[in-house]
């Protein structure tokens, strides 16, 4: 029977890709292991190997086609003795779908909408009025921020695993080796504790290292140098020497990478005096804050997110766009409830705000941008208006950033609160691998909506 060749998934986060090139033509013989096509994902060009033997009967997706979905039929392979006529008989049976286990629904269906509210997306006060905008992915914004700062200051260099010749495990440092040479774009061995200490030492002597962790899960190997050396030296030396260094890399869950590769460490670092902690959401956050972090004379933890890397946003088209560290942004104005989030948590907050608007609830959405120092004033100003707060993050609930926000809000705006502060977080479990469990472990838009209904007593 003819065999369908399907668009393969080539990375944990890939949903679609470009069929860049066919390396075999219709009628060509194919043996298992032959490279038959090239596919471009957002990160790389990958080769597709044949897994079966036969003759390439028909190409269904021509080369150059963009946005081909994973598992779409791209060609038909004919077995021994089969000819093209067999193709019509080929079953279009899709790949076996995962058997679904019973999943309890996490939220009731939304109530009948009341009068929809219209919310103006707030302008960013940090961007001068009339600035031209351009589209950028978070990935490009991060790369551009580093490149601009490396052009400005010869003491800035970047080091980490696979940052140079491989162009970055997640392609954030793409092109930097070419421009800045191996003196300033440095591939390290897999020795996080060692190269982190080395980086901190170089920073103590006045250089400006950017240390990339392939993911922040691996920074756990280097935790001692980050906390005991980078964060405390300025204090211990009576102000003589600090460590102007940026630790950056993807943090938190990607997709199906399991318990040891999915943790969000914001609360861990935010706990420590002597560190600044940034968790950007948009491309503008990423660019403006990474530039600020590189210029900052202190150790800065810069927590990115793999899923957000490929997201596109409008960013200001400016020569030198720098955002202030420690200042939140009101991402969307509203009057009934304050949603506070940061990083990838913003994706749930903004979607929920949209849905809530349809239900007649006006949500103000605050993007914290920086975790430490925490811009509690912006949160408090909003709470005085709305009287209700829901925080959203992917990290574990216990001793979380949400816990801290709830504490400060009750301390500083107790009289304004009309309901307890609620938090929507990742569940209090290590990240499971199974697709259904992973979904349950992460926050969801319905959970945010439920929390809002609870604090607005509209459930």
């Amino acid at each position, binding site marked *: 029977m003819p065999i369908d060749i399907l668009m393969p998934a080539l990375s944990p986060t890939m949903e679609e890709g470009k069929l860049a090139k066919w390396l075999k033509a219709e009628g060509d013989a194919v043996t298992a292991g032959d490279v038959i096509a090239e596919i471009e994902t957002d990160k790389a060009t990958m080769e597709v190997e044949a897994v079966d033997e036969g003759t390439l009967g028909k190409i269904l997706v021509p080369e150059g086609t963009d946005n081909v979905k994973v598992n779409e039929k791209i060609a038909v392979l004919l077995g021994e003795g089969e000819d093209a006529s067999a193709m019509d008989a080929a079953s279009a049976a899709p790949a076996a779908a995962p058997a679904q286990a019973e999943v309890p629904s996490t939220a009731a269906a939304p109530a009948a909408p009341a009068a929809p509210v219209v919310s103006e997306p707030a302008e960013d006060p940090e961007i001068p009025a009339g600035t031209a905008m351009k589209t950028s992915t978070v990935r490009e914004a991060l790369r551009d921020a580093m490149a601009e700062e490396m052009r400005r200051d010869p003491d800035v260099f970047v080091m980490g695993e696979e940052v140079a010749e491989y162009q970055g495990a997640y392609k954030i440092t793409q092109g930097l080796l070419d421009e800045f040479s191996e003196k300033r774009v440095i591939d390290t061995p897999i020795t996080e504790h060692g190269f982190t200490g080395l980086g901190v030492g170089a920073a103590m002597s006045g250089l400006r290292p950017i240390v990339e962790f392939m993911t922040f899960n691996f920074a756990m190997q280097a935790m001692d140098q980050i906390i005991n050396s980078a964060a405390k030296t300025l204090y211990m030396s009576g102000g003589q020497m600090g460590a102007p260094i940026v630790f950056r890399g993807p943090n938190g869950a990607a997709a199906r990478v399991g318990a040891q*590769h999915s943790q969000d460490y914001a609360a861990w670092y935010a706990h420590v005096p002597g560190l600044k902690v940034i968790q950007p959401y948009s491309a503008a956050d990423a660019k403006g804050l990474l530039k600020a972090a590189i210029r900052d004379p202190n150790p800065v933890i810069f927590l990115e997110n793999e899923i957000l890397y490929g997201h596109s946003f409008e960013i200001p088209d400016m020569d030198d766009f720098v955002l202030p560290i420690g200042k939140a942004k009101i991402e969307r104005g509203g009057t009934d409830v304050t949603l506070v989030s940061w990083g990838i948590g913003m994706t749930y907050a903004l979607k929920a705000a949209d849905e809530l608007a349809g239900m007649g609830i006006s949500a103000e959405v605050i993007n914290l941008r920086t975790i430490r120092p925490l811009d509690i004033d912006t949160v408090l100003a909003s709470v005085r208006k709305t009287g209700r707060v829901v925080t959203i993050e992917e990290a574990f609930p216990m001793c979380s950033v949400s816990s801290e926000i709830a504490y400060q809000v009750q301390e500083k705006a107790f009289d304004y609160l009309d309901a307890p502060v609620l938090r929507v977080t990742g569940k209090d479990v290590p990240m499971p691998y*199974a*697709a259904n*469990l992973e979904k349950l472990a992460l926050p969801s838009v319905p959970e945010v909506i439920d929390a809002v209904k609870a604090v607005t007593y509209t459930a």
Partner: protein
Amino acid sequence: MATASKTTSARSKSASRTRSTAKKAKPAIAEFDKDEELHAYREMLLIRRFEEKAGQLYGMGLIGGFCHLYIGQEAVVVGMQMAKKDGDQMITGYRDHGHMLAMDLDPGAVMAELTGRRGGLSKGKGGSMHMFSKEKHFYGGHGIVGAQVSLGTGLGFANKYRENGNVSMAFFGDGASNQGQVYESFNMAELWKLPVVYVIENNKYGMGTSINRASATTDLSQRGASFGIPGEQVDGMDVRAVKAASDKALAWCREGKGPYILEMITYRYRGHSMSDPAKYRSKDEVQKMRTEHDPIEQVRVRMIEKGWASEDDLKAIDKDVRAKVAEAAEFAQNDPEPDASELYTDILL
């Protein structure tokens, strides 16, 4: 890309350039008898076919996250398995499917873990990188590069504590061999004479970085020298050489002489994980290994030459192995996902 051209393609060339290895005599290769050859052939083929299937299922979106295939390195784990005794432990990193199959774990349960189903070895909660079997003495399945080395040392510590005569085998890569905790472990293991074989699977690359770009000295068998741990380089593509070296190392440990290092010179044919475009090495380099040093092909050729098996016999084995893998894949696709209640189990006792 610049890396590929700088890297020598042949197996132990980069290592043999260093002085210490040049002095060493090539170890004699212990011949296998017919049963051993057949056993090795079947076991290695099972790993190869299993991994090919896993690659296919990944492409179909049925396996998610990271998936690191063991294709090319089969002789290492199979040779060690042939030398070990009941109760000896294995522990490794994320490139762990081959180790589990060699430790006699059910291919269906391994594959079902890859697809994240309830019949998986970790009930679907661990995934490709995290599987364990206390019953079969397989201790994982670890995602943090180097962590398994200290853990494996602890397994050796427990063996000595219990005086059970067992040896633990801690597998790690050439890239992992630069992690600090490896040397902290070496020191304790030799100081306390712990029965641990450190198996360095030197496949020339840690992700996209060739060993020469990551390591100041590339003869990894000598990495224990400053602690007094003996070590040797082994042709990790020849299952007989692996078995012979493992016999020696395991005996050393069992005699109470402390740890031993085996550097297995091997090669992975596929990318580091499924999402690695592998631009850091040339296609010729990979092709050369496949055609000249393939561990399975070597056994096949020997058996044919000696008349121990005919082409038909080997075809029958392949058919059998394929059927086993197909059955595992079938199970892994049809087994249901874990029950939602599993989210909150197994966190604490």
